[in-house]
């Protein structure tokens, strides 16, 4: 049985992701002292061969973007990719509260905050404590180049997509969180445990 074959699991996972993202939004609002707009998270189970098409559909553009990645691990391992418009996130420089921030440092800072808040809150819903790697900039590219044409080291992955906006600012960022292969099973078990707790 796969994750999305079972409506109960699928709904429970969506709900857990929703709650996690909501909490993340609240933390981000307090950190930035402004209102954060979060979309409803979208979940997709994707084969590695379809990753570019699915990513483009989720983000809604094939044009130039800046991508920043960050890995996380515990019992589940995965990677989050924050996708910014080509202009980056310089418009948020005043939000980070320290001077002399460079464009690259700002990209890394914002990505770390988004990933830490969202993926951390999500993991907390599953009772998982995550470790994070430092974020790194993948580069400025057209979206189809994100995964290139090289073979990917996984068969399929669960993707959670959420996009962020900030009130009164022309800023938008898509955060894609990938749980590949074995991590999906761990998530399934966590969802099952959550459902069992509800039923118990």
């Amino acid at each position, binding site marked *: 049985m796969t994750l999305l074959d079972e409506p109960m699991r699928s709904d429970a996972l969506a709900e857990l992701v929703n709650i996690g993202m909501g909490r993340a939004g609240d933390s981000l609002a307090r950190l930035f002292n402004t209102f954060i707009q979060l979309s409803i998270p979208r979940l997709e189970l994707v084969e590695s061969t379809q990753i570019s098409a699915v990513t483009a559909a989720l983000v809604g553009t094939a044009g130039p973007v800046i991508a920043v990645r960050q890995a996380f691990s515990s019992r589940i391992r995965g990677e989050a990719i924050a996708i910014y418009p080509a202009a980056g996130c310089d418009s948020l420089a005043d939000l980070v*509260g*320290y001077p002399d921030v460079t464009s690259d440092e700002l990209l*890394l800072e914002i990505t770390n*905050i988004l990933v830490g808040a969202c993926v*951390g809150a999500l993991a907390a819903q599953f009772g998982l404590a995550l470790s994070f790697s*430092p974020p790194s900039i993948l580069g400025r590219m057209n979206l189809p180049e994100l995964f290139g044409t090289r073979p990917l080291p996984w068969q399929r992955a669960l993707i959670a997509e959420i996009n962020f906006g900030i009130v009164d600012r022309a800023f938008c960022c898509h955060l894609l969180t990938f749980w590949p292969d074995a991590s999906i099973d761990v998530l399934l078990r966590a969802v099952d445990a959550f459902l069992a707790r509800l039923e118990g």
Partner: protein
Amino acid sequence: MDTAITTLDHLNAGVFSVDTELVIVRWNQFMASHSGKSVDEVIGRDLFACFPELPERWLRWKLRSVFLLGAFAFSSWKQRPHVFRFPHNRPLTGGIDFMCQDLAFLPVTAADGTVGSVCVLVTDATDAALSQRALYDAHSRLEREVSERRRIEDELQISHKLEAVGQLAAGIAHEINTPIQYVTDSVSFIGEAFAEMRCIVQTYRQALYDGTRRMALEDNTDLAYLEQNVPAAVDRALMGLDRVAALVRAMKEFGQPSLTAKSFADLNRAVTTTLTVAQSEYKDVAEIELEFGDVPEVECHIAELNQVFLQLIVNAAHAIADAHVAPARGTIRIKTWCDADAVFISVSDNGTGIPAPIRNRIFEPFFTTKPVGRGAGQGLAIARSIIVDRHAGSLTFETTTGRGTIFLVRLPR
């Protein structure tokens, strides 16, 4: 717990923790030895009071985000190389001012689920930083070399094209020479024949009408007009042919192949030949002033010297064109003289002069300030090589920005 603390103390990385008030609550041996502040000196004290040199606003923001979000935070040496001014780990080999550091900020959750303290891990990234700097330097060097190579290839291509054009011109000059010769002979013959025919017509006229009348036929053919204008037309044709022949001779002389052995040549004649060939380069921008001295023939490779003179004349014309707005014209002065040891040729112009920053580079191969197509940047380098290496002479210059330049060729007798 003791074991854990001992392990922390032996880590080759800095570990310290601060509580929500940013008071230091943990300080391992690495931090103590690199900061010069012992555990007793810092524990229980405010982080920024102990280290006022820290980037306070930045660090407060980082710590606040970890306390608030309960998430990790990081900083990289690439953006913030020296958060702590720690000495580097290369006391012998050196190569860097301070230790480059990566920092990781880890939330430490209290029993109530809130973040009670933040543990900061400081790792030494100096080796990675030095490797990256070396790679960056190598990459930059390679990029410069590739760019230079591309430029040289472009210039070589232009140079080869110019050489081919030169050979073509010499070949055409050779081919034109023969027809010019017989066209000139024929036009001369026509001129002479017409003069004789005119005498004959005059004689017939005298014999038939005592020179008092003309036949109606003469009026119909406008013989009077022909008698008056054909000799002038023939003279003009001969003059034009003479100029074409002179140009062809100059091109042939100029383009003659270099001989392995030197031969004696008249340098005044060589300059004249070159001026004829280079006319299109200077005739619209400059007057030529010649001051030929009584110089002896010099044993030389004359075709190569022609190339040097051409380069100097063309450069002078370009400098004048850049300095004068038409119809204003400049002057190119060419002077030859000699002393007991050498023959001298100077080519001076009242053009732009050579700017001071590039004066020591003008003899470098492929150095040019001219747009692509106007100069391959090899001219003066080759000229100097011809004069210095092939003739044991010298090629020097004096220049004043805005006033002009004088090039001096010295050839040993």
